């Protein structure tokens, strides 16, 4: 059980993924987004090598549609896989095999895909999409988190009729550089999406400071003094 949103920002071209699940540390899947190439995020009974393979194929020039055919041809258990792929021309595909269980499904939009399995029902995917579309002018990281919150608030995950908590959550946004712009995680927390919201809000206060400290360390103040100045501002 997992639900995700993958997207290419229509304004900036940045790629991003937001994901949350019952399993621990879903953000370890950092191989799923590649700058200037695309996103490939697999889940359900996923094979870990599939995302790097799909991104390698995208980089070679294959279309997402062709990649789906090639993955299907080389996987006896393709029916158990769920994934989405976006390339840098906004070609979007998603696949939900019939073996992914109840309820599982996806929605493909013009520059995004929302999908999940082990969900309370189709309203969860609808909630992800509604969250993502709520603030179309917002930065991609905000839209990804709104999407996860939309899925959670629409019922989230369920198995055997019991609601299951989102125990890990993750958002990652890449621009043109190798180093991700945003990569924030919660690895084990019964309210991981809310915790991720707290961490993103906090990170935004530090973001310019951290960037400046890398780019020009000569003028950087000690971080504990920066923290004290934030606390003063808040008081």
């Amino acid at each position: 059980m997992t639900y995700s949103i993958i997207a290419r920002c229509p304004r900036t071209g940045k790629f991003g993924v937001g994901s949350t699940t019952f399993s621990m540390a879903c953000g370890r899947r950092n191989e799923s987004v590649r700058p200037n190439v695309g996103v490939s995020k697999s889940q359900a009974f996923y094979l870990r090598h599939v995302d790097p393979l799909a991104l390698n194929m995208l980089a070679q020039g294959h279309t997402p549609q062709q990649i789906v055919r090639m993955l299907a041809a080389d996987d006896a258990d393709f029916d158990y896989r769920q994934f989405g792929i976006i390339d840098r021309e906004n070609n979007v595909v998603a696949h939900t095999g019939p073996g992914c269980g109840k309820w599982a499904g996806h929605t493909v939009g013009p520059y995004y895909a929302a999908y999940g399995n082990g969900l309370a029902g189709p309203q969860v995917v609808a909630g992800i999409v509604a969250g993502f579309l709520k603030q179309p002018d917002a930065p991609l990281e905000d839209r990804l988190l709104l999407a996860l919150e939309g899925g959670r608030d629409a019922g989230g995950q369920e198995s055997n009729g019991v609601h299951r908590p989102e125990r890990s959550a993750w958002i990652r946004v890449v621009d043109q550089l190798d180093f991700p712009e945003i990569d924030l995680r919660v690895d084990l927390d019964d309210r991981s999406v809310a915790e991720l919201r707290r961490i993103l809000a906090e990170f935004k206060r530090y973001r310019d400071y951290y960037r400046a400290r890398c780019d020009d360390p000569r003028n950087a103040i000690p971080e504990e003094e920066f923290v004290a100045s934030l606390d003063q501002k808040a008081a």
Partner: protein
Amino acid sequence: MTYSIVARCPRTGQLGIGVASFSMAIGRFCDGAVRSNTGVTLTQGFPNPRNNYLAINLLGQGHTAGQALATLIVNDARGDYRQIAIVDRDDNAVIHSGGKLRPWAAHRIGKGYLALGDGLAGPQVVEAMAARFEGTAEADLDERLLAALEAGRDAGGLAGVRGRLPERSAALVVWGNRPHNEIDLRADLHENAIAEVRRIHADYKPTIAYYDERARNPRNAITGVEFAENLKKQQRKETA
């Protein structure tokens, strides 16, 4: 205000990093830091975000760890502010600790590993990390990295202009022979981030084999929820 241990396991060839910092989400800076059968690197202090990718590409092309390090230094107008560690697949371990890192900045070089940090309570922090890493040679790499972080914390950890600083984020990364991590755990904002990663690691490690097997054989897999419940029962039995 970051300390880390960067290492290769001599038994398994696994490559890994344990890192803790006062800064948020230090695990971000492990991005691109490891490539299977190639090497492991980390730039900290005032990190240069391009360094990991360049260092690993240089190792992958066949350059020695020493030449990769020299290239990173001359490629960067602010090299004085960086602390750069590289360990290659032949257990060569090299390090650059720039002159303008925050005091105490220190490192220890071992065979196939490096303990390093800046903004430390003192050099005893990296000494304690190295001693713990050496003293746990029989354990798995992830356990050794985590134990070394704990030893660094318990030896005084981080100190800033106002004294002791908490480890607010931590990360544990291990790669084996596959083109992706085996273990990649993080605490991004927590008052005791190393203890939080220890807590997550205890629950996470038993699931690795389960998720691997489930992907290869989905037809007979039990659900993740069932697996987690069975694990909890087993853990309760063990502590009873």
